């Protein structure tokens, strides 16, 4: 399965850097985009309020590719909101014109560790009233968990 395999996660000084490699995917250029998307709220009422309080459900950051290795860094303040979206999925998307717009989901699927969520644990970062923690999901995808910082 084509995906972006996470090798290192560096939450430091209000930023998160992600390093890894593209698996079964040709980048088609030196620049990619990291897209973080928040799943929509369930109820209609909630949705209307959420647009105001939580902001858009998409955040985009640049990523660079060298061969099959990628790296991307983003400030956690980009997720600051009165009520931040609680969870974000993460994808790498090619930017080059004409390249197939295949999304590569970020995750860790190639090593021997059975429970990534328990073994690969990272500290949270705080900025502008939001606490952002990179986590692995039950499906071994990388996600961001956000909540208001106390």
């Amino acid at each position, binding site marked *: 399965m084509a995906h972006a395999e996470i090798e*290192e996660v560096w939450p*430091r000084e209000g930023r998160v850097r992600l390093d890894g490699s593209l698996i079964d995917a040709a980048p088609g250029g030196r620049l990619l985009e990291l897209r973080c998307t928040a799943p929509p709220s369930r109820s209609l009422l909630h949705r209307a309020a959420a647009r105001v309080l939580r902001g858009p459900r998409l955040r985009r950051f640049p990523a660079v590719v060298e061969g099959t290795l990628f790296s991307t860094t983003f400030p956690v303040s980009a997720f600051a909101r009165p009520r931040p979206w609680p969870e974000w999925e993460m994808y790498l998307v090619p930017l080059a014109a004409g390249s197939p717009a295949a999304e590569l989901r970020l995750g860790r699927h190639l090593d021997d560790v059975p*429970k990534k969520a328990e*073994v690969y644990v990272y500290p949270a970062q705080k900025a502008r009233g939001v606490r952002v923690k990179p986590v692995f999901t039950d499906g071994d995808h990388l996600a961001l968990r956000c909540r208001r910082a106390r």
Partner: protein
Amino acid sequence: MLHCAEGIGGTIRTVFTQAGQLAAAGHDVEIMGVFRRRERHQLPLSPDVPLHRLVDARKGAVPPDPAPGSEIPAGETGSAVYTRGTERIVADYMASFDRDVLVTTRPALNLLSARYGSRAAVRVGQEHWNLHGHRPDVTAAILADYHRLDLVAALTAHDAAAYTEALPGTRIVLMPNPLPTLDVPRADPDSRIVVAAGGFRRFKGFDLLIRSFEQVALRHPGWRLRIYGGGYDQGPALRRQINKRHLYNHVHLMGQTTTLDREYAKASVFALSSRAEGFGMVLLEAMSQGLAVASFDCPHGPADIVTHGRDGLLVPPRDVEAMAGTLCRLIEDRALRVRLGDAAVEAARAYGPGAIARRWEGLFEELLSERRATLRA
């Protein structure tokens, strides 16, 4: 005899291994657990070894005479469960013991066997901790009563010497723990994983190892440290330490596993960072799989098991810099890893279950023939 046969721990595993080997050699072997804590034992036991218990300690069971006992020093781990009723049951069992050899495995049972065990039987007390590592009241009881045992078995040369000096006239023997099996997967010398294992307790020194690995990761960022284990109270502190030093990409707390041999086989280097040990079973197990080992030369065990420079490397105890340097030396020299690992597999053979069982057999036969000679005279 075991305190309890249903737990998971070094003493239980060692006794199960010994009993299985002796039964396979044609001896009639039984295990008596004092307290029955669960319906079934959790560690593997040969079907040829019957398991009995003296006191039902499962939920809802009525304890025998719960008044406090008077035999076991308060400093002995778990002394509170030796009530007056339990002490009487254990002492009666030992006094009426009508087989050849009674082996007990911790101070509480060794003391009761010394005081009440049948004089017709050969009584062996196994010690899994060093003499002066016990609480003072336990040490005092040992010094007063162990001389009534026919044999005291210690795990390390240092312990054997200490017991010999403290108990003149008592027969002391050095008898290391056996490996459960020599049929284990080999380590991969090309792996870039350093492995460690043990309960998350302070004396295991994983905090020291994490500090050492901080230096290793700077010089060799492609290498990882995996620590298997859990329980006890040090887990959150170790996690904080990893985060504070930004080692979350290099040091991983892997949790507990029942297949440690398979995890060892994925690594090329093993580290023992303990401040103290009773023996160092995890070190011996790593060597039996051909890992290149680096171990603090802590009291006591590693220096008995490892011949420095031949089948592993010993590091001055608690020396974080020296451990980092030794790990780097192993990481930078594949040929050294292979040479130490091969020699370690050879060295570990002496601790194979068969080899240790034969040593016990020889000892039991010697003690029994002496006993028969005394009875004839």
